[in-house]
């Protein structure tokens, strides 16, 4: 609820009696520009028009236009851009660091519940009586919910005892 003396624009009456104020200020209407004033204004206007007609503002295509930017804004924008470049570069470096450890080991950052190696030996091209056989070893890093992150296939010749 508004106090009594607070102004409410919705209840403002522009046609309310303001005769006293109008009469008081009406003397200002008698202030006239000096006679030479009009000549000065006409001369100013004529000079401006001549200047504009003689050297009109050339039409500049949008790709050649320039805008004024305050220096603090330029400095802030440059700092922000450098920081974002630095952040992007550092995160890229972190991603490209080599994983330390063997394929069978858990990686330092991996969750043991979510990752597991899948060593697998598959005898192939082996024939009876041969001393060696080729073994294909598949290993990979699998994250549940995402899928395989990396796979590695090795072809190994193993000595075969008969």
């Amino acid at each position, binding site marked *: 609820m508004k106090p009594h003396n607070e102004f409410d624009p919705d209840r403002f009456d522009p046609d309310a009696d303001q005769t*006293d*104020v109008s009469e008081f*200020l009406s003397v200002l*209407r008698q202030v*006239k520009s000096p006679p030479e004033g009009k000549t000065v204004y*006409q001369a100013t206007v004529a000079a401006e028009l001549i200047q504009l007609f003689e050297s009109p503002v050339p039409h500049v295509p949008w790709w050649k236009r320039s805008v004024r930017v305050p220096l603090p804004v330029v400095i802030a924008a440059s700092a922000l851009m450098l920081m974002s470049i630095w952040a992007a570069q550092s995160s890229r470096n972190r991603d490209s660091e080599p994983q330390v450890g063997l394929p069978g080991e858990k990686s330092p950052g991996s969750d043991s519940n979510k990752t597991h190696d899948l060593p697998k030996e598959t005898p192939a091209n082996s024939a009876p009586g041969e001393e060696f056989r080729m073994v294909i070893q598949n290993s990979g890093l699998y994250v549940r919910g995402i899928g395989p992150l990396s796979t590695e296939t090795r072809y190994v010749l193993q000595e075969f005892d008969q």
Partner: protein
Amino acid sequence: MASDQSILNGLRERNPDAWKWLVDHFEGSLFRFFVCKHRDYNLAQEQTAETFAQLIRSLPNMKGSHDQLQAFVFSIARHVQLRHWRRPRVTGCDPEMVESVADPRPSPATQLADREQLERVLTVISQFESPVREILIFRFVEGFTLHEIVAAADLPLGTVKSHIHRGIARLRKLMADKEMQT
């Protein structure tokens, strides 16, 4: 000039006849506007000329019809006035001193029958801060509608109404004080 719209078109096309009409139509009210602000006739004349120069450059970009011309002219005048106060002044000036010393020619005010009354009103109105002073002049001297004041002062309607309401209350108090003194 044939019609309001043809005047506006002439101004936009920078037709000299249209601009002559604009000077004849607005020079008095613009001069008055600046006198109420500065109480300095030379400065008022200088800023009136500067307003016309600014209008030549900005009026071709004006949006709206002829009805908005008056508000547009005074919005430019307000910007000219504001820019003046941002500029460093060469000397501090007392309006009374400037009037009596800077220009030896008789000022327009001396031609008035009741010079004292004019000085009294100028003293009272100069006690108001911007934008209340401009709004009171627009309303009670130039006879603007509320919507013209909104456009010229670049303020919301509610704010304009509030300034008028409080301005009138304060003006009545100052008028009563002046009467008590006399």
